[in-house]
Structures are given as C-alpha cells and as structure tokens.
C-alpha cells in the first residue's frame, strides 16, 4: 500500500498536480484505482517535457478561427430560406445529429416529407427513406463485388462464353414453356379472381405493397405445373393499381397472360360458384373445390381494418370462407391475414395435392408454433414450454394464447 501511495504521489506531482491545482480540483476526489490504472500510460509519457499544459478552451479557438472565411461567404446569401431549402437544411442537421435520415433526398420526397401531418409521421417517413437508401447501397455494393469476382473468373477460364449461351437459351425456352402453360390456363384453367376494389381503403404505400405481392403471385402461378387463370376484376384504368402495375412490369404489362377487366366478378361468373376468401369469415374452408371460383381481396391493410372484405362479400351476397389455420396450426403470434403471394402458394398447392399440411407450409414460420398432429394436451405442453423458454412469458400467458386460439372446444382445466 505504501509503495502504491508513493507511486501515486510521484505521478500526481509530475504531471497532474500542477493541472489540478490550476483548475481547483482536489486530488482526493480521484479514486485510487482509477489513478493507478492511468499511471502506466502516464509513466511512459514521462519523457515528455512536464511543463506542457493543456489549454482546455483551445477547441473553441479552432472552431471559431475556421469561421472567419466561411462567415464572409454566408453573409452574401439571402438570410431567409424558402420552404424546401429550409426543410433540406433541417434534414441535413438531423443527419449530422445522427438520426435516421437519408443522405440524398429528391424534390418529390422532400415534398411528401413536408406534407406529413405530424412529427411522428415525418420521422417514420424519413426512417423509411433511410432504410431504403441503405438497402440500395448494400445491393449496389454486392453487385459490384459480384461483377469483380466474375471478371476474375473470366480471366481464368476461357470457354465461359459457350456455357453462357447455353444457359441463356435454356431460360428462354423455359419462359416459352411457362407462357404456353399460362396461355393454356387462359382457356382451360380454373379462374382465380383478384378483387381490385380496395384502392380507397389503402394508403399509397399499401397499394405499392399490394401490387408487389400480386406480381410475386403471378410469377409463382406462371411457374406452376397447372396455373390458375388469373382475373383482375373491378380494375379501373388509370387507377393507382394500374399505375403501380405499369411501374413494376413496364412493357411486359401489355403481354401478361391474365384477364384484366373493369367488370365485377358477379357479372363474369354465376354467383353460386363464387367463394370470397377472407380471414374474417365465420366459415372455415374444409376442402379445395375445383369447380368453384375463389376470390382474393387485393388489399394490404397495415392498420388491420377488420371486416372490410367480409362486408364486400356480404353486400354482394356471396359465400365466404377462411383458411383452416386454427385447425391445422398451433397459432402463436401475428394476424391471421396472409400476404397475397402466400395465399397463391397455398391455393396452388391445394389444387395440386389437396394436402393441407403441405399447403400451410407457406404460412410464415414465425406465426405458428407447430402443426396440430398430436393430442391437444401435449401441444399445450409444448406451447407452454416454448413460451417459457423462448419468449420468457409466464405459463398463464401461454394458456391465454391457447384459449384464444382454441376457444370452446378444449377445456383447459
């Protein structure tokens, strides 16, 4: 202890003490251990001239000295900024402050930003743009790396060109085959209707997402062995849907092998053949019927507007059905409405195999715990276990969840 104190005194005397005295600090404020741990690096610096002092306000001088020239520049600028420029300026400051703000923002995006009704809406929009920018940057970086790698590969291999053309031909043949099947489905296939009448219910972002999901569904339909004949019903020209479709497909939109019509499905098909698929339906689908025409609402509802598509079916007096999710899956979290491409995968699988288990593989894994194939009692145990292990939730929570998913049929006690 004594030697430690000696060391401490030595150090304090050598460099810190003059400083501490100057700034009116008490040396016994320093806990012993901290000073000791610092002592090592201080010791090494002993060679340095001990008279060197720290000017603590030097940074201010530096910051202010840099200003002189800049100030003269800024003075010439008009002091009051216009709305857009001011917003851009504010965004720049937010970015400097380390908030989730995009580096580059277009005029159009800036206007959308200014039209956001509240502070939180603005924040959300900026975060969205920021993430989008990040993803784009990452994709670009990956592309570049890939290209570089390929160039290196090409340098080493010489007969690459041959293989390439073969690949190319293969994919175009596949395309032809797919289109042939899709064309066949246009004549003989079972119709599947996308109801495009929800534009008013959605925000611009939701419409974009909807169209994106439909594009995915269409492509997986085209690739299947026995595609549906897809109908876009209630489709208005020049609607938001239309504009988004053109944005996604570009010139391929005109060549798409689907039926697009502004008519309602009730005008195209007999009413008793139509079944509206909606998660709110009280009826649960038992089997896939090859003679029926299923309708899927083209709607993404981020704010969970319950009963919108059920209301539509009620108004038209159509039969409705929901997927038997609870019957086959031990549901854990998330809403029971699925994305349009998941619906398409499920319906295609049902059509081909009539196997519910296989079809419901396409429900996202995070939404359910397990398939219902054991006695319910065991399942409940597993669910409890999962909940206590994974989520750290109590036993009660698990039971509540269970009771919610399986209301009356199984008594818990």
């Amino acid at each position, binding site marked *: 202890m004594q030697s430690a104190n000696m060391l401490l005194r030595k150090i304090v005397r050598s460099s810190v003490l003059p400083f501490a005295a100057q700034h009116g600090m008490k040396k016994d404020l320093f806990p012993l251990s901290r000073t000791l741990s610092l002592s090592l690096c201080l010791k090494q610096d002993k060679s340095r001239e001990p008279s060197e002092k*720290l000017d*603590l306000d030097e940074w201010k001088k530096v910051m*202010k000295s840099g200003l002189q020239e800049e100030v003269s520049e800024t003075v010439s600028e008009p002091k009051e900024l216009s709305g857009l420029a001011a917003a851009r300026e504010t965004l720049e400051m937010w970015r400097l402050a380390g908030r989730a703000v995009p580096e580059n923002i277009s005029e159009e995006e800036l206007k959308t930003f200014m039209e956001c009704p509240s502070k939180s809406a603005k924040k959300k929009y900026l975060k969205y743009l920021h993430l989008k920018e990040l993803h784009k940057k990452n994709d670009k970086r990956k592309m570049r790396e890939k290209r570089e790698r390929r160039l290196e590969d090409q340098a080493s291999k010489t007969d690459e060109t041959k293989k390439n053309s073969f690949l190319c031909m293969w994919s175009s043949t596949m395309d032809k085959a797919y289109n042939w099947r899709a064309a066949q489905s246009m004549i003989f296939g079972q119709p599947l209707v996308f109801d495009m009448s929800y534009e008013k219910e959605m925000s611009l972002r939701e419409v974009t997402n909807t169209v994106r999901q439909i594009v995915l569904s269409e492509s997986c339909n085209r690739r299947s062995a026995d595609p549906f004949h897809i109908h876009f019903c209630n489709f208005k020209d020049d609607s938001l849907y239309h504009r988004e479709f053109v944005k996604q497909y570009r010139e391929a939109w005109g060549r798409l092998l689907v039926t697009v019509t502004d008519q309602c499905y009730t005008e195209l098909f007999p009413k008793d053949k139509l079944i509206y698929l909606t998660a709110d339906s009280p009826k649960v689908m038992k089997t896939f019927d090859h003679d029926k025409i299923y309708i899927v609402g083209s709607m993404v509802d981020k704010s969970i507007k319950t009963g919108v598509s059920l209301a539509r079916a009620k108004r038209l007096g159509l039969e409705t059905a929901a997927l038997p999710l609870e019957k086959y899956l031990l549901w854990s979290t998330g809403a029971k409405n699925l994305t349009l491409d998941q619906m398409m995968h499920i319906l295609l699988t049902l059509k081909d195999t009539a196997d519910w288990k296989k079809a419901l593989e396409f429900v996202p894994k995070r939404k359910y715990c397990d398939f219902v194939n054991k006695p319910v009692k065991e399942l409940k145990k597993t669910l409890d276990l999962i909940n206590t292990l994974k989520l750290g939730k109590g036993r009660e929570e698990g039971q509540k969840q269970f009771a919610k998913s399986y209301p009356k049929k199984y008594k818990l006690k």
Partner: protein
Amino acid sequence: VQPPEKPLQAEEWNKLREDFQSPEIFEEVMLNSMIRCNSPIDVAKSLLTHLAKRDGDIAYNVLVKYLTLCVQQGQVAEIRDVYDIMKGRFKVLESGAYKLLIRGLSNSDQWRMALTLLEEVKKMMIPSRTCYESCIKAAGRHQEMKLAFELYDEMLAKDVVPTLDVLQSFFDFSRGMKDAELQKELFGILLYLRENQIYPHKTFMRSIKLWFESIPGGNWRGHLTNIKDSGQCPVCNHQLEDSNLTEEEYSNLSERIIRDVIHGTDTFRKTSPQEFEAFQTFVENRLPFDIVIDGLNVSHIKSRRMQCENLFDAVNCLAKENTRLLVLGRKHMLMNSSNWKREIMKEMQNKADFFFAENISEDDAFLLYATLRSGKHCKFVTRDFLRDHKACLPNSLTRHLFRKWQRGHQIAFSPSAEGRSINFSSVFSQQPAFRYDCVVQTTGDTWHIPYKDVFEEKYSYQVPRKWLCIQQK
C-alpha cells in the same frame, strides 16, 4: 468505457482510442459515458481540444453531446459559448440542440435568451412541449406571470398539449399573489382540466389547494374528502353536477353513434342495411325501454353455469314492477343446444323483449342505439368497456361525451365471491351507474376537484373517488 477523471493530453486520448474496439465511434461512446457518469466538463473539453487539433473541426453530434453535459451541470457560460460556435458554424440547428439550449439557459439568469431561442425555433417548426415548459417555468420563476400565460396560450393555440408539470407550476408560482387577472387565468386552467377530463395527481392537487388558501383576503378553505354515492359532498353538503347530458349533447351523441359507429364507412361491416332497418322498426314500435341488456355478454358472467341460466338470472333480477327490458342476442341462441335450452329461452321471452341479430353482426352497436333512442333514463347492462366503439367516434369531444354518458348509464355485473347460491342478487354484485359527474366543477364560491393518487387509476374508464373540496367562507 469508463471516462477518465481528469483532462488528458492528446497522446493519452490517442492511446485510449487505439485500445477501444471500434475507434470510429470512440468519441461518441466516450462522451455518452461522460454524460452518464456526469464527468467534469474539463475532461470533455480536453477531448474536444484533442479532436479540434487532430481534425481541425468538431462534428455536430459531438458538440450536441458536449452541450448535453454542460446543460446537465448548468454551465451557463459554456452553453453560451457552444451556442455561438454552433451558430457560426451551421446555418440552422436541429430541434435536439435547441431543446438543450433552451433547457440549459432557462434555468439560469440568462433565461431571457431562452425566449429568443424559442422564437428562432418557431421560424422552422412547432416547438416541442418541453421547450415551452422550460420557458414558461423560467418566466414563472421570475414572477413574469403575464409572459408565462402568453406562452401558455400560444402553446394551446398550436395544439401542443401542456404537461401536468407546467399546469402545476402555474399554481406554485402564483402562490400568495393578489391579482384578479391572474386569478382568472388560473381558473381558466382548472376549466381546461374540466374540458379535457384530466384529473390532477396528488401533488398537483396540493399545489391547487395551497394556492387557493394563499390568496390574500380570499378566505378559501380546502378539504380532502370522498363523495357519497348520492353525489353529495360531505364537507360542504353541496350536490355535485349530475351525469346527464344536455339535450344538445344527447342528440349530438346519438347522431354520431348511428353515423360513425353503426354505419361507419360501410354498413355491411357491422350489420346489413336490411337488418338495421328491421331492428329500427322493432325498437321504434316498442319504445321506450328502461334497461337494455347485452344478452351474450351477461351469459358469460359465470363460466361454470349454463349460459342461458346466467342470462335467466340477470333478467329475473332486473325484471321488477313495470321495468321494460330489451335483451339483445344473436340467432344461434335460439337453436336448442347444451348452453341454450329452448324452454328457458321461451320463459325469458315472456319477461322481456328480445332481438336476435345475425350471428356475424355486432350486437353492441344495437345496444347503444336502443339505449340512446329510449331516452335519458334508460340504462344498459354489459361488462364490455366499449372501447372499440368509442374509438370509432371522430373527435375527442364526442369521445368525452361518450365516456360521460357511459359512466352515467352503464350497469356492470360481476360475480361475487361466494358462488353456489342460485339467488341472483347474492351471486352477482351490481356496479351502479354513477349519479354524479366526475369532473372539475365550480359554483363560484365552491370548487370540487377529483384527484388521483399517483399510482392508482391507470385505466381510462376508472374515475377517481377522491376529491378536493374548496369553499369560500
């Protein structure tokens, strides 16, 4: 990382930085931990000096972090310096820095500068409520109540919701002042509480009480009390306002319920036009009812018993001399099943009117309609809090009306502890509708202010049972 206790030399900072796992964010992490440990600002200064020497510039976010440290320690001169530097270096500042500057300066003798800064913020955006809070408190602390109220009014005009803290500070700072104008303003705050159905917490209530009692020559006396179920104040024997809506409020509310809750964007979402029309004629032909019962809700009160038995008990309990009952249910109740016995259903239909909605319709909407159509005396029975229906209403004013009406007209049953008895009244305890309105209220020479103990009443449907009674002798 642990910040050092004393200023370091450039080399020492460099060494620390090299030892740190990701040197790019070293300064940020270091400053964050300085803020957390409340390190002396000299240490932070030495870091800034090191940075300035190395890069010839200091990043904005680092400056803001340093500013946070200064504000935390109330280093006013330093705050001003940082402001000058920031102002020279950047064209505009962002809201976070302004918030810090305003907060830091408003606590010092340079508080007027905070006001200038607030003006600067206003040019770009609506200042946050904490900015206003700092300025108002600063003005109040220096007895500039007029200025404080100007800022407060401006805040309300911009739809910025004041914190309870600000409202409380008005009462604290005005204690002992005799000024008719000021008194009017403070009464205005109490009326703001009334209009927005805000209940002050205990310490806030105490500030109000102390202010009233401190008015020179005012002769106000405050007492804490509980109001009886009858609505009479035990201290001053004053009868509180009853919970009835005015004619205008009543018709406004029923119109809104029909338009926004039942029809909404699409009548088919909750019912169908045919069904609603059938229900309307059904109700109009049998008006008025005294009690409307949510049949399905009541039937689930005791899970051990048959659902129709539960409902039967409820109907028997409420069917007294000449009370007109309406029970709302769904069609599946008419199917003979293990839970719904046909004979019991038959017997009940002799005692009350029944309306059965489609199985996929929402019967709650019908419950609201039938009760409102029957008039002010009519009550309804359900344990549902009706939050989803309240949420359908378009603005907070109608939502407040709805809450008030609901408090006055909803009867909720709950199963009591001893369960075996068949006698209904002993099985269920009945929570009566409130007979008085639970808001801040005045008659001129009395004030009654409901308040809550801080950790109590976290649910919006719960109202405080404790009151502050203030009367002028």
